[in-house]
């Protein structure tokens, strides 16, 4: 079968690919070490120039290099946290949707309880208790953002498990694990792919939010959220310090959103499932 991507998907895929390339080849692409002072702009940030295309911050660091390296932290957090989210969400969703009954009620009520708690507030509380760090941020974001996935996967699993082909397999004597793995899961896959692509943009934003609240990946690792936080005082006098990392976040979120929505449109799935 020939893979035919639509326009949205193509743009999204190219943008995501670009992001990945920047993250992987950061050491080759960045003109300077992102954590070192390379300009004498201490206390008085420099505007964009030929030597420092996006300016230099109050610690003499090159903003462009920091944004390039920041892609690494963002991508790692975005993708890895999404993986954790999916692992938890899909397991709970499949179990609830396929098994039904008391298991379903129990798991979904638990999900409802989790949904009542504001994600960012919960993440702040958890990170504060667990000490900020890359692994902590990954785990925390994964642990709090699986609820949407669980609900959508459950709804999908519920409808699929009542379809004729599943009933037929059951009538032929297939065991429950076999039913889930061979028949239900593959058919839930498309919606999972969409949730993953759209979810990455969500985790990216959550990571930026945590970094902005100084609870993200600790320095000297550059992160876009923290770059904005550190430049809030310079909003009026050196706006480029905040604008460029802000644009980077916008780019990454848009890339994953386009990819997800494009896929959704191609498969003719209902966007309201998100």
């Amino acid at each position, binding site marked *: 079968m020939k893979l035919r991507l639509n326009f949205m998907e193509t743009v999204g895929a190219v943008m995501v690919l670009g992001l990945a390339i920047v993250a992987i080849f950061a050491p080759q692409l960045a003109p300077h070490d992102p*954590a070192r002072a390379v300009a004498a702009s201490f*206390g008085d940030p420099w505007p964009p120039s030929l030597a420092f295309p996006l300016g230099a911050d109050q610690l003499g660091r090159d903003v462009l290099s920091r944004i390039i390296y920041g892609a690494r932290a963002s991508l790692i957090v975005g993708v890895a946290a999404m993986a954790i989210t999916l692992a938890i969400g899909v397991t709970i969703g499949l179990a609830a949707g396929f098994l039904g009954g008391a298991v379903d009620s129990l798991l979904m009520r638990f999900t409802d309880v989790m949904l009542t708690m504001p994600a960012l507030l919960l993440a702040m509380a958890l990170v504060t208790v667990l000490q900020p760090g890359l692994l902590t941020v990954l785990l925390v974001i994964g642990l709090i953002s699986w609820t949407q996935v669980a609900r959508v996967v459950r709804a999908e699993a519920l409808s699929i498990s009542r379809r004729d082909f599943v009933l037929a397999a059951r009538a032929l004597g297939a065991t429950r694990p076999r039913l889930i793995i061979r028949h239900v899961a593959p058919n839930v896959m498309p919606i999972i792919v969409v949730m993953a692509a759209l979810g990455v943009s969500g985790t990216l934003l959550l990571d930026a939010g945590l970094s902005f609240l100084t609870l993200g990946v600790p320095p000297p690792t550059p992160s876009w959220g923290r770059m904005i936080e550190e430049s809030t005082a310079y909003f009026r006098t050196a706006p480029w310090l905040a604008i460029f990392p802000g644009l980077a976040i916008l780019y990454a979120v848009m890339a994953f959103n386009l990819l997800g929505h494009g896929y959704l449109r191609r498969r003719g799935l209902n966007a309201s499932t998100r």
Partner: protein
Amino acid sequence: MRARVKTAVRPIRAAIAAIIFALALSACRAGSPAPIFPPGAQVLHLASLDDVPTLDPAAGYDVDSWMFEQMIFDTLIRYSDSGVDLVPDIAAAWTASPDSTVFTFHLRNDVRFSNGRAVASADFKYALERVLDPKTRSKGMEYYRGILGAADFAAGRAKSVAGIETPDPSTIVFRLSAPDPIFPHKLAMPFAAAVPREVVARYGEDFSRHVVGSGPFMLREWIGGQRIVLVRNPDYFVKGVPRLDGVVEAIGVNEDLQWFRFETGAIDLSAIPPAVFPFVMKTPRLKALTMRIVTMTTRYLGMNCQMPPFTDVRVRRAMNYAIDKRKLVAVINGRGIPANGVLPPSLPGYDPELRGYPYDPARARALLEQAGYPHGFAATVWLPADQTMMILAQSVQQDLALAGVDLKLKPVGFAPLLDAIRQPKTVPLFFSGWEADFPDPANFLDVLLSRAQWGANNDSWFYDPQFDALLARAKPLADPARRFALYREAQRIAVAGAPWVFLYFPVTWQIRQPWVHGLALNPMRPARLDRVWISPHPSAK
């Protein structure tokens, strides 16, 4: 007192809480309060992020509390408006015995509390006994333990302090158990201000909200988290003072917002946020309105001398060579002087010839190699979680990375940090600072580095017997030359022992509106506002 970084302190979680709190408050408060001042009154408008912790002189031990306490209360003697020399306040004259154990003060007899009662020597005795009473839990207690009988009084074995005598209402005599030539300085701290016994008895713990003093201003209104209003005391004993009719401080305004309000003329004095500082310096109109003072403060990176690898003096010296102090000062817009040692330059006894540790990364690496760390080591630094400190810490992190030291940052709250550094072998590295309470090297060297202060203020757990012996010899000396010579020698031992990375001595900058006159900054105390006056201006309300 423990010094905090005063530029752009922005504890974000506190700010969120403050916003929620302010919203809740504004929801239940309708309409504007009746005006306190008539049109055309001379009112100085200020703004601050934090509420005033307390107005009770026995309780306050921070810059914000002291600023208001010194406007409402009087001490026997105080510092001059812009210097650190002692001048009369309520005491017109005083004498000291040659051995510095007996101090006699003669009070003016025309001073009244704002409730109309005359201030007498017994009010000072009462104030100090209140500070020494353990039930008051005053942070100033330690300073007055040297008075004869203070220990007995504090332990409940005596009804009053035997060493404080009040032969008549206008005389007070202090007898000390050991010579202390700097004792008068301790009486210039707000802890020793006269308070009226009858008002304290009436309000008890709530005295802070109903303060009555004899100072130039009186408390008119204090709405927690919103504003504090002082009005002129018409019966203040200095004629023609204060010149202002009142002072209003809006609370909950961070440095950036202060600057916006200053630009619109809504406030009369403001701090200068780091981001606009270069702009202010480049604008002649604004630069002319700035005021600068080198405060008696030292900022340092403390190293715990009991925790490896900082048990090795070579490592501690290497840290000093590895950190570029000039860069740190540049990062804070040049609002500081690279430190050469413990004592700040405005402090009497400062040693200008002390060289300290220049920035020398090669030497740092060599010292680390000698100490057995050719590839450096990893360490965690604790610091107050605010924006400026995080930026400074990242500058230090950059420098140390070049020497092979992998520095991890651990931002914590200010109060938990102070608790943690008092625990033995808990905090290996920490950012800290100290601001003088009185202008004497003892306030730094004794308080911060002597063995007696382990678990209290000696947060680097430094100990050098020779250093302690010098301090003991210097303490009873009244002659400044001999006293300072010994302290200089002691400081050299401390610098060689390098329990801290000596970072910088901060310089405070303020900006005032062109219509504000008569303001003087003090290197050790908040500015006194009693001689400030305001000329007619367009934004007068």
